[in-house]
């Protein structure tokens, strides 16, 4: 725990990637298993320990400290966990005077296993025994507040460096692994290379924005284009008789779509879009969402909302890894494969023909189906690469006045909504921090309102009168009518008529849009 606290401190005070990496490498080299894997998971947000709530902490400190002194302290420090770590009356003021703390893994296991009733005494006991910076690390861990700007990608790049292999090798294995990733660390220590799990998710290739580019520098002949469908990007995997359907973030949705799963009768990995489709008619995303939200699905629902796969790409096929091949080669193999499957529920995403970017823009402006949200542009020579690598795939959305924002605050509504949290403040990323960019009061259905309200109540991190701050986890697609410059808003922009177009439970908060993306949508300044 002592080393973890020190690592946390070092990571928190440096914005630089290279320095963060150096701190990780040193920590990995000096920390035994399973602690180093747990630390990695805790810092990338892959360890969910949300048992200890802010209100539990407030209760604990109010039993030990004058409320006025606490209020003055909290007011000064501005962070609940930090205030308590510093002011905890029975704790040691530094690490030297505290006894040796238990290993990180022991504290995590204890937190995972503790019952609600035992939790307060257990946490208090730990705070009494830990030194000051360890109390901070412990509280941040226990409340799930370890935001120090470490992305999963940075963690895997660093881990690959530690093992001494290319990051693609770690990415390939990553999805089959769970904290504390002991097999990976043992590989680094000279152990055997771990075997990938059967039918595990392969690293997904992602696109960057086309709007940020100057198309004049790109030759249309080097690119293929296809429609970007408004469904859920999935990876359909079938290996050794095991069939799986994953979202691109690695969520296993096999059980939710048994009607599609049973059709994955092949040996390979297909990248595609999950859609609700009856004949040629593709249903809007809201229909798909009705199925997404369920753990189990009824027969009538499957009949009414039948799942289908529209294939974009082919990663593996009958033992052959196609990922290093150029798009054109993979596309030909994909066409053969889909033809051979001969299943009406699995079809090909059509390629668009265009000679100029203007021609593509015209197609994009008038798509033949309302469920199309733009076009995807893919470099014909590019291999299938893990992650969001610039210069290969681009998305060009039809309606630029849409952003994916993260829910930050919610306020109770008025009138018939007074029982619900119905006024939502959302933000975009600016560096490692979220900056609020607007508020929305409508755009959702009554059922969605209930879901949002539940989310707010379950993920509250702080309260200010009628307003609750929530953990930055839920992505909201915000549609708006226009954008103005604003000096009144910290973000520098004001949206006109923002509304919640969609709740993106399928998208991790870290992938919400960045503030500079929104600013790029501003009309040019006059004069």
């Amino acid at each position, binding site marked *: 725990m002592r080393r973890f606290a*020190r690592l946390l401190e070092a990571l*928190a*005070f*440096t914005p630089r990637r290279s*320095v963060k990496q*150096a*701190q990780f490498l*040193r920590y990995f080299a000096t920390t035994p298993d399973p602690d180093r894997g747990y630390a990695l998971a805790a810092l990338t947000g892959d360890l969910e320990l949300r048992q200890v709530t802010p209100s539990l902490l407030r209760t604990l400190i109010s039993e030990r*400290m*004058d409320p*006025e*002194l*606490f209020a*003055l*302290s909290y007011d*000064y*420090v*501005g*962070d609940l966990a*930090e*205030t308590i770590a*510093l*002011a905890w*009356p029975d704790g040691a*003021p*530094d*690490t*030297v*005077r505290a006894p040796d703390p238990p290993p990180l893994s022991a504290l995590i296991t204890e937190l995972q296993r503790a019952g609600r009733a035992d939790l307060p005494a257990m946490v208090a006991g730990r705070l009494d025994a830990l030194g*000051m910076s360890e109390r901070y690390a412990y509280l941040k861990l226990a409340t799930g507040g370890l935001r120090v700007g470490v992305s999963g990608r940075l963690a895997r790049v660093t881990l690959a460096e530690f093992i001494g292999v290319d990051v693609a090798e770690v990415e390939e294995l990553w999805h089959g692994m769970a904290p504390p990733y002991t097999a990976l660390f043992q590989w680094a220590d000279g152990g055997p290379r771990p075997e990938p799990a059967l039918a595990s998710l392969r690293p997904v290739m992602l696109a960057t924005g086309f709007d940020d580019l100057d198309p004049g520098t790109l030759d249309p002949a080097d690119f293929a284009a296809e429609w970007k469908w408004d469904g859920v990007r999935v990876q359909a995997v079938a290996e050794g008789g095991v069939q799986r359907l994953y979202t691109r973030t690695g969520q296993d949705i096999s059980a939710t779509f048994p009607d599609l799963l049973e059709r994955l009768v092949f040996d390979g990995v297909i990248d595609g879009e999950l859609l609700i489709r009856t004949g040629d008619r593709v249903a809007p995303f809201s229909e798909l969402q009705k199925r997404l939200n369920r753990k189990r699905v009824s027969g009538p629902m499957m009949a009414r909302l039948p799942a289908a796969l529209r294939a974009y790409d082919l990663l593996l096929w009958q033992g052959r890894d196609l990922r290093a091949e150029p798009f054109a080669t993979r596309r030909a193999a994909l066409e053969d494969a889909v033809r051979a499957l001969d299943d009406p529920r699995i079809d090909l995403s059509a390629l668009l023909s265009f000679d100029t970017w203007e021609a593509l823009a015209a197609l994009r402006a008038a798509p033949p189906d309302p469920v199309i949200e733009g076009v995807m542009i893919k470099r014909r020579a590019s291999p299938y690469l893990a992650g969001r690598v610039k210069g290969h795939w681009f998305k060009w959305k039809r309606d630029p006045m849409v952003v994916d924002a993260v829910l930050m605050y919610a306020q109770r509504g008025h009138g018939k909504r007074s029982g619900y949290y119905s006024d939502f403040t959302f933000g975009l990323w600016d560096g490692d921090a979220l900056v609020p960019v607007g508020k929305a009061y409508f755009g959702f259905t009554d059922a969605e309102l209930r879901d949002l309200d539940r989310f707010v109540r379950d993920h509250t991190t702080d309260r200010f009168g009628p307003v609750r701050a929530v953990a930055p986890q839920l992505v909201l697609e915000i549609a708006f009518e226009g954008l103005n410059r604003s000096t009144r808003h910290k973000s520098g922009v004001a949206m006109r008529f923002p509304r919640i177009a969609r709740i993106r439970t399928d998208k991790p908060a870290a992938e919400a849009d960045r503030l500079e993306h929104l600013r790029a949508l501003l009309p040019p300044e006059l004069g």
Partner: protein
Amino acid sequence: MPGFDAFLHPRPEGLYCPGGDFFVDPVRPVHRALITHGHADHARAGHMHVLATRQTLDIMAMRYGADFADHTQVADAPMRIGAATVSFHPAGHVLGSAQIRIETPGGVFVVTGDYTRTPSAACAPWEPVPADVLVTEATFALPVFRHPDPDPEIARLLDSRRTFPDRAHLIGAYALGKAQRVITLLRAAGWDGPVYVHGALRRLCDYHVDQGIDLGELRAATIERGNKAQFSGAIVIAPPSAFASPWVQRFPDPVIGFASGWMQVRARARQRGVELPLVISDHVDWPQLTATIAELAPAETWITHGREEALLRWCTLNGHRARALNMVGYEDEPE
């Protein structure tokens, strides 16, 4: 029987003793000033008579020139001034710093100036001085300020140097007191390599050496043109003001540190863009401050400057009479 107020009270110029017709640490020019220590907000130029320790007088002369006052006198023994008897006692804050004991017919006052109970090789340690009225500073008077032992903090600096052996470590520290506190801590931790000091620290460091404080090998932190590599892995001490200047950019990929009690609060460290916050203070923290009041048990505690609200609350909860003097002119921020 008049209250304590009749014998010592705040005036716009500073804390005033009518019996002796003198001020303590006045912020405006006065006829007679008693100075606790050489920091600029406590020790100002332009007074007629100044009484202070030898070292504080030397430091004032270094800072303001030899003619900083018309008359100076070294406080080396108890001395009668009008109806008051005054004596100076170590405060442990910086070289020459003193608490001033003022005995009047209405009771004994001890004005702490700035002080700390954390000992340092760079100055004489604080001594408890019993008082009827303790006139104390309160720079770090919040329960969250519990400064760790300085040794493990310095160990973190040496540890960072081992992790980043090619990066210069630039540590911000105020020129009088903090810089030398940090250097003596480094020496005690076994660092016997050179310590580079910014030009603005040089004279004060030399003065400490003259006064018998061993700072080891000091070198000027002056970079020869095009020779950044010379400072790979170097430990450099500089005043905080230097970090806003282009001077910093001359160092190879520096780790910016800052030695201050404020570094205990993360937001403060981030505001300053500090990568290596070192919690090294020369003021009393909350436990030291409250322990001092509890141990000395003065009839009254007066608070000169700092965060008086929390300390007043603590005194109320613990049955000590206390009041805030709300004195202006002393800086809340630097330490």
